[in-house]
């Protein structure tokens, strides 16, 4: 029986557990920080001396921890890229701009166990010689920002933060910065721009890799809330021990947000790769199955930008058998282990760990129109393909869902979407807005064509040849028209 493995969520939602420092301390809080700060230098067999922070970084490397924000990039590797010779200060930013539709895991940590996140942040900061760190929290988390500020105050008062932390001689200050409500602020370089007080336009890479030219052109580490919490547990257990959780190359635990047409939507912490997609949806310990009489239609496995899976799909994956030999096996959708590599191999991604389940009551065209609207609204507008393509797709889908479709709209949409991703844009938003359209249209092509054909038939019957654009103008358009002086 698959079970939750509650490590980060260990205390969250337990009766009587509060975000207060006193409660956290009662549950053993900040012991790991104390242990990390007290780590003595270690001499390696070769005579090389590893300082405490260097050992911590090594533990994270050994743990195999992959970023929990969406890209799944190795955390230890990310830290190793930091330019430590520039003479500039190194900054750490906790990315708490959780905005990927379907994702609600970081919110639980921030609202219910803020000190766990702070402890992880302080350890990560110490490990990377950071003396100034920021929490960039999405603007909608108003209460979350208040909770964090209160937690920072408590931590400061008890000497976990500020000058000479716990007598170790290490200084660190952390500030909370609230976003103003834009999805793109979760993109790390957009976040940095926003933190600097500018519009959150993602930066071009090269040359602006955060590890070298980040916040204020200084080396900067940007880590997700859950990743930083994991750092605490890695230091507590030791990297090698942590790597025993989960599966090879997909180590540790991660929190999965399950939403949509399941009986028990919610957040569940699992060992990565030890639970399958089917178990997450159907097992009583997780999603608890679909509603009475409903069939599975589709799964969006990693936040709304992940490519959709159609019910009944099978994949040919390389898997290692019990004898250690690698072979290609056919794996059904619901048997896919929920980890980073399997989902990539199956053509999608686990992204932010948000599983959106769609049953057969779903209008797939309308679902995509909803997603496309979101991305058109959130495109920052900096670079051409995403700026123009995201709105174009949203407009076409609006047409298709408002009785003005055409049979050729499936190809039309695919054509637009194909011209956005693949390195043509500054940041990964290009992929984020194109992947849903590409995958929905490819996998549910018949439904898109049927919708367009029905509209065309109705128009023909009423004597109208061509599809006319419909719908009220967008608010920004209306405002623009109002601003234009009359002739």
């Amino acid at each position, binding site marked *: 029986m698959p079970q939750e493995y509650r490590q980060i969520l260990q205390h969250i939602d337990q009766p009587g557990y509060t975000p207060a420092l006193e409660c956290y301390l009662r549950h053993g809080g900040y012991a790991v920080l104390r242990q990390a700060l007290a780590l003595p230098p270690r001499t390696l067999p070769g005579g090389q001396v590893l300082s405490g922070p260097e050992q911590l970084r090594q533990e994270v490397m050994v743990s195999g921890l992959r970023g929990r924000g969406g890209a799944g990039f190795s955390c230890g590797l990310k830290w190793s890229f930091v330019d430590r010779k520039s003479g500039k200060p190194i900054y750490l930013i906790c990315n708490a701009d959780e905005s990927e539709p379907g994702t609600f895991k970081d919110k639980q940590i921030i609202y219910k166990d803020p000190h766990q996140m702070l402890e992880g942040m302080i350890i990560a900061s110490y490990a990377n010689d950071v003396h100034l760190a920021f929490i960039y929290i999405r603007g909608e988390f108003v209460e979350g920002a208040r909770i964090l500020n209160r937690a920072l105050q408590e931590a400061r008062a008890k000497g976990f933060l500020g000058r000479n932390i716990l007598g170790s001689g290490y200084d660190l200050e952390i500030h909370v910065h609230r976003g103003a409500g834009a999805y793109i602020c979760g993109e790390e370089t957009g976040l940095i721009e926003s933190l600097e007080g500018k519009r959150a336009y993602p930066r071009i890479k090269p040359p602006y890799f955060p590890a070298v030219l980040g916040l204020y052109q200084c080396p900067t580490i940007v880590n997700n809330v859950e990743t930083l919490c994991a750092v605490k547990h890695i230091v507590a257990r030791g990297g090698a021990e942590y790597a025993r959780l989960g599966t090879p190359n997909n180590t540790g635990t991660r929190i999965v947000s399950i939403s949509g047409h399941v009986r028990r939507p919610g957040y569940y912490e699992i060992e990565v790769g030890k639970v399958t997609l089917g178990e997450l949806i159907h097992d009583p310990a997780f999603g608890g199955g679909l509603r009475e009489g409903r069939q599975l239609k589709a799964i969006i496995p990693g936040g709304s930008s992940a490519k959709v899976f159609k019910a009944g799909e099978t994949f040919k994956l390389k898997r290692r058998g019990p004898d250690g030999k690698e072979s290609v096996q056919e794996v059904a959708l619901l048997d896919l282990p929920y980890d980073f590599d399997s989902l990539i191999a199956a053509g999608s991604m686990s992204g932010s760990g948000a599983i959106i389940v769609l049953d057969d009551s779903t209008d797939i065209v309308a679902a995509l129109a909803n997603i496309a609207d979101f991305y058109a609204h959130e495109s920052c*507008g900096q670079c051409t393909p995403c700026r123009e393509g995201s709105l174009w797709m949203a407009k076409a889908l609006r047409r298709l869902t408002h009785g003005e479709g055409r049979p050729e709209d499936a190809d039309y949409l695919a054509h637009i979407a194909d011209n956005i991703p693949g390195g043509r844009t500054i940041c990964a938003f290009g992929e984020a807005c194109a992947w849903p359209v590409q995958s929905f249209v490819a996998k549910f092509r018949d439904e898109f064509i049927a919708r367009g054909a029905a509209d065309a038939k109705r128009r023909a019957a009423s004597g109208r040849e061509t599809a006319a654009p419909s719908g009220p103008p967008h608010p920004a*358009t209306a405002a623009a028209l109002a601003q234009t002086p009359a002739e």
Partner: protein
Amino acid sequence: MTMSTANPTPSPSTPPPADTLQVRVNGKAVEVPRTMPDPVSGKPVPTTMIQACFTAGVMVPHYCYHPKLPVAGNCRMCLVEFGTPALGPDRKPILNPDGAPRITKSPRPAIACATPVSPGMEIYTDTPAVKQMRESVLEFLLINHPLDCPICDKAGECKLQEYSEDHGEAQSRFVEPKVHKPKRVDLGPRIVLDDERCILCTRCIRFTRDIVGDDALGLVNRGSYSTLTAYPGRPFDNNYTLNTVDICPVGALTSKDFRFQMRVWFLKETPSLCTSCATGCNIVIGSREDRIYRYEPRENEAVNACWMCDYGRLNYAWIGRADRLTEIRGPQAAGQAPAPGWTPILREISGKLRQAAAGSVAIIASARQTNEELYLLAKLAKKLGALTDSVPRMGEGDRLLLNADRNPNSAGARLTGIAATPMGANLPKIAEGIRAGTIKTLLVVGEEVTRLGLGADLLARLETLIVSDILPNETTRRAHYLLPGCAHAEKRGTFTNARGRVQKFMKAVEPRGDARPEWEFLHELALQVAGPDGCQSLEGLFNQMARDLPAFAGLTWAGLGNQGATLRSEP
């Protein structure tokens, strides 16, 4: 294909110097510096792909990239494919059987404007994938564009039009309603913005913020609704706003002065100089049928890069004024026929000058005259023992281009010896000479002397007042001989700017009526007064001046080229 053509790289025994590296653009090897100066700070920054492509003579289409602005990388038009040498475990390049390094092609494209080159990199700008990417970017740019070329001032010099020819589709498949944005936005006193034409390349924002230092422009709203605007409640008004019209790759920013005046393809373009201050910005005069429609900056690294100020740019309307002096005039006895023409009048003047006693002639010549004209006047002055001077014209300068000295040729006036030290110091002496009766003849070229202490009463004391000018004023009204001259746009010549750069300008439009270039009639006067000098042309005159005057030593007319040449010593 033989080895040598397949691999024309230099043999390993002669590696390129350490400060350059070799890349290939579409197979062609090109040597580029490792770093190039940053356009704003001047600090060395890694050379980019687009710079390597340009070095190789390969054009990469682009909108947001501008060599004088910080890189933005937002238009995505310059996407290219590339590859780098594959490295073995020993970090050394893996070689193909033919000895050339094996290239690993990058799975993702890169923007040429921002991606640094690395040794051995191969850049491909003409692959099917690159062409497809350009076509798609162009399609995205065009879907919400109003396509109003027939009424757009940029038509004919619009990058959207140009690249549409190269990479565009004849028909649009876009069937959705276009995004509508503000039109005819009054951004400031000189600029009108059409937000629907804007492709959001941010060149204007970067220029205004990073070059001018005025954070006046920005974008509001998001995504496809992003809208260029000036800071709320503040007009876009600095002295460099019109440069944004030049660098706008489309017709979003238009000049109120030029808007709807002339289709650009009708304009004749003449290389010239701005005469509004001592900086000497290089310009192109756009004219048609002897009417000037606009000035635009002409690139010159040593002077103005590719910018000019609004003050200088708009200072041309006077050339076309209706009250321009167009008639040559001599002293008219009652009942005599009017205006006998240049030859008799010049003969009359030279006769008077030849008979004048030494020291009885004074010359006031504007520092807006050319080097050659001032040189001729200096020759006359020497022959006549004349007291000479020019008139200082000072204003407020700035840190960019505008010089406090508003004369275009103060340096020339000093170097030819016409101007006193300091300029204007001889004016009271000339006034005194006239009052005392020692100065009986005054030659004024291009200045209104009644405002300079030589009032009507003094001018009335003169036996002969010879005036050359362009527009009527108190001095020209009192002239015994009035010689209509030319604006710089109507003649050729050279100016010496504040930093000692001698630059030439060409004739854009014909002079009006009797008006003749000053150097022509001054040359005739000099011949008649001081004797032949062997010169037939302006070129000869310049070369003679360079031989005569030590300051101009070594210069030749031909050697000036279209970018000018700097004097050996600062003026």
